[in-house]
Structures are given as structure tokens and as C-alpha cells.
């Protein structure tokens, strides 16, 4: 799959799955804008890795829950690369709090980043995608948009919202030849996360947890960021033009058990 001459914006691309997606798109030939919120050094590391393999990338700061910052970010990317063909909504907050642990401020932060931020960024890229005659939006959701987490209620709610945002946007934006799809990753092994997420598993229980978790994957391993990046690259490519409003679960079969 070639994404040569395509321009992509990936939100939350300084770490984890987002970083893997940015690298995957760059490997396929896309020029990539690497969004980050609070840790510029991580985004710069993503950019450095893309440059190392001969790709083009630059980092762009924005809090995706703030409309003015989102529109400013899209303006900067458009100015830098000349437009946007591919939007990957990935930036998310996951504090791992239970029902009774959430206060209103944290609730707002999670819902506004994980759900409203996806809509805002989509709205902001529409003019450039319309001008280019087509576009691809890929929303990174989670298996927890359908199955509860039991460790972060609002995170799951936000992903339930993303499911419907994807479907609504798909039917609305089809007339502009913009497809909107969603990927539901299962557990993916990533490095330390940005922000202040509480660990789901305490450090002393991790090795046992890892063994137990592995048995939950028919394919015998947890996911890697590149597993998700591969699906994104396909959905971003011309080969996926008849797919819209779809969700693809990329979880090694774990939800089947």
C-alpha cells in the first residue's frame, strides 16, 4: 500500500499507538504531522525516527479538547504541507478511575479529549479535505467502546461516543468522498503513557498479569503499535474507498474468548 504524496495528521502521536501509526504512515510514504499535547520531546522523537528513514514530518502542539487550538493546529499543518488527506484521531486520556473516583473536572477532560476532540479535529480538517475532493478519517477507538473496562468508566463512555460519531460522520461526509472508519484495538503493549494515568496493574503483579493476559489472545500475543498502524494504513489508502462507517477490531481475537 502506497501513501506517497499523501499528507496525514495523527493526534497524540508522541507515544504508544499514535507513534506507531505515525511511523507506519511515514513508512508507506505519507508526510506526517505529529500532534502532541504536553511532551514535545516525545513528538520530536517520533519526527526524528521518520526523518531517519527518509520521511517528512514535523511536530505540532495542540490540546484537541480546545476548539481554537485544534483549528490553529490544522491551519499550521495545511500551511506546512499544503493540505491534509488523512486524519487519524488518536489522542486520548485514560486516567483509569472507577465510577466513584471521577470528579467533574476529570470527567470533562476525558470526554472532551476522547470524544469531542475527535469531532473538533474532524470538523477542522473538512475544508481542506473538501478542497482536495476526498479524504480519509480513521478514529482510534477501543474494544472498550463495546465491552466495559471495569477500570475506567468514562474512558469506555467516550469510546461508545466515538462509535456513533464515526457512523454519523460516515453518512454525512460521504457526499464529499470522505470516508470515516474506526479501529478497535485490544490490549497493545506500549511504553509509558503521557499524562497521569494510574496503572491498571500494579508493578509487582505485572509479570503474572502478562502471562495471564497472553492466554487471552488466540494469536498468542498482545498487540503491537504496528498492528494498529497496518490497519490505519489500509483504511487511509485508495484501496479502502468503499469502506465507510465501519469498525475493525484489531485485538488478536481476544474479544472472542
Amino acid at each position, binding site marked *: 500500500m502506497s501513501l506517497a504524496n499523501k499528507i496525514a495528521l495523527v493526534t497524540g502521536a508522541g507515544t504508544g499507538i499514535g507513534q506507531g501509526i505515525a511511523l507506519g504512515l511515514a513508512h508507506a510514504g505519507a508526510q506526517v504531522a505529529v500532534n502532541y499535547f504536553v511532551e514535545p520531546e516525545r513528538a520530536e522523537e517520533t519526527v526524528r525516527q521518520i526523518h531517519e528513514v527518509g520521511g517528512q514530518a514535523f511536530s505540532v502542539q495542540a490540546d484537541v479538547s480546545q476548539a481554537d487550538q485544534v483549528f490553529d493546529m490544522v491551519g499550521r499543518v495545511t500551511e506546512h504541507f499544503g493540505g491534509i488527506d488523512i486524519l487519524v484521531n488518536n489522542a486520548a486520556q485514560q486516567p483509569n478511575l472507577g465510577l*466513584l473516583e*471521577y470528579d467533574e473536572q476529570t470527567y*470533562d477532560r476525558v470526554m472532551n479529549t476522547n470524544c469531542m476532540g475527535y469531532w473538533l479535529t474532524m*470538523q477542522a480538517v473538512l475544508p481542506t479535505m473538501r478542497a482536495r475532493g476526498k479524504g480519509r478519517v480513521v478514529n482510534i477507538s477501543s474494544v472498550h*467502546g463495546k465491552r466495559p473496562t471495569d477500570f475506567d468508566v468514562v474512558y469506555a*463512555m467516550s469510546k461508545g461516543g*466515538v462509535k456513533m*460519531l464515526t457512523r454519523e460522520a460516515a453518512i454525512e461526509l460521504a457526499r464529499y468522498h470522505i470516508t470515516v472508519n474506526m479501529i478497535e484495538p485490544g490490549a497493545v503493549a506500549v511504553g509509558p503513557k503521557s499524562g497521569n494515568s494510574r496503572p491498571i496493574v500494579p508493578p509487582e503483579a505485572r509479570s503474572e498479569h502478562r502471562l495471564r493476559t497472553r492466554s487471552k489472545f488466540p494469536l498468542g500475543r498482545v498487540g503491537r503499535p504496528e498492528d494498529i498502524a497496518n490497519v490505519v494504513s489500509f483504511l487511509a489508502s485508495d484501496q479502502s474507498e468503499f469502506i465507510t462507517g465501519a469498525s475493525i477490531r484489531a485485538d488478536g481475537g481476544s474479544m472472542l474468548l
Partner: protein
Amino acid sequence: MTSARKLAFISDGAAAGARAIAERLVSHGMQVMLNLGPGQDEEGAKTAFGKDLWESVLWSRGDLSQGASAGRVLSQTIEQFGTVDVLIHNSQRIVATSVEHADCRTYQDSMAVNVKSAFFLTQAFARQPTLEDSRIIYVSSIHAEKPTGSSFVYSVGKGALGMLAREAALDLGRRGASVNVIEMGPVEGDDQRFASEISDLYQYYRYKVPSAVLGTFEDLAHLIWFLSLPESRFINGSTIRLDGGFSLHYMNHKMKLGHDQNA
């Protein structure tokens, strides 16, 4: 089947359907507390309910769209009556708006009514010392699965509400509560509420129900009453679609109409 002397809290006493729900629950001996929002008129509610029914229910006033204050409204009821056995979240706002043109204020206001109020009511409900045999029932919509093409933020809210129900079913199920969500299908007037230039889902909507009969709020009230009973205890974390089969409809065949009218 009995549910006598239980107290049910209905989040939006002025919403379409509140009267039918209250009437059903009261007729089976339940106490009903209706919440009225800041812009909702007591006299108007009284007229809508009718004098006899209005006098048989309790009511509170509180703005549930203001985040954590939603929790405070329910906490006050719990403090006053000792317990709330059944929480019914029926608040909803449908605003015609598009992904392309919506503004943040519209998005936030809609999400506050449709989802955030449910979250903070659930939190307050969960703070009760005992939840044994208690119930939470969220009134959602088929648009938690099927896009409207007319109000994307409504669908987003209902999608989020569905996940709140599943999370709460796991969490509070351990303490004896049952938490479920009802996805309501078409009732009279939904073709106007969900008017769309993109989707023809509501064109001839009556004839997309296999029986060619639309749903009513009495249908909703029956189901809520059943879910509030002890006999429903093993229904937990379920999404119950109440749409007469409308969502099974595919393409444009109109039920119970002849070939010429289907052309």
C-alpha cells in the same frame, strides 16, 4: 409481581414519556419522584399529568445538566427518603446539527443533558450504603447504534450512555443492583424530530415497523415497570431494543402496503 413502596426517581419529569412511566409505577404502588429542570414549569407539568396523578407523585427541582449538581439533586432525595430504589434516566435533548457545522456550545449542552447528567446521577445512586435489589434504567434510543443523519451529537451521547450502562452493570452488579438500557424506537413525531436530508430512515417510518404500528410511551412504561421488579433481577447489563422490529428493516419495503405503494 410487586414493586410496592419502592421509590423511583425520574430524571426529567417534563419529558415525553414521564407521565406514562409515572402512571404505570404509581398504579403498582410505587412512590415516584419527578425532577423538574430550571426552565420547567410546575403548573405545566401538573396540567400534563392531570390533577390526580400529579397529587400522587413527589417532585424535586434541580438542573441536572450542570454536572456534579445532578448528583446533589439525587443525594438530597436519598437523604430525605433514606433510599432511592430505582433510578430512571429519561433526560434527552435532540438538536438538529451536523458534524460539519455544529458549534461547541451545542455539542456540550446536548452531551450535558443526554450523558453527563446520567453519569453524575449514577455516581450519587452508587453512594447509597446498600444497593441490594436496586435498579438503574437508562432510556436510550435506537440511535445508540443507528445514525440519525440529523443530530450527530444525540447519537454520540446515546453511544456513550450505552457504555455507562455496561460499566455500571459490572460495577454495581457486585452490590446487588441491576443496570440496563432501553433503546427506544420510533414513536409518533420522530419523523419530525429526526428529519434529515441525508438519511431516509424516517420516511414512511410507520411502515418500516413490521406490524406497521408505532411505539408509544406506554410501551416504554411497561418495560420500565418490569425492569424495576424483583423478578427482573437477572437482567443486568442488557441493551433492550424497544422498537417493534423497526431496526431490522432494510432497504425500503413498506410493511402492510401493497406492491403499488411500494414501487
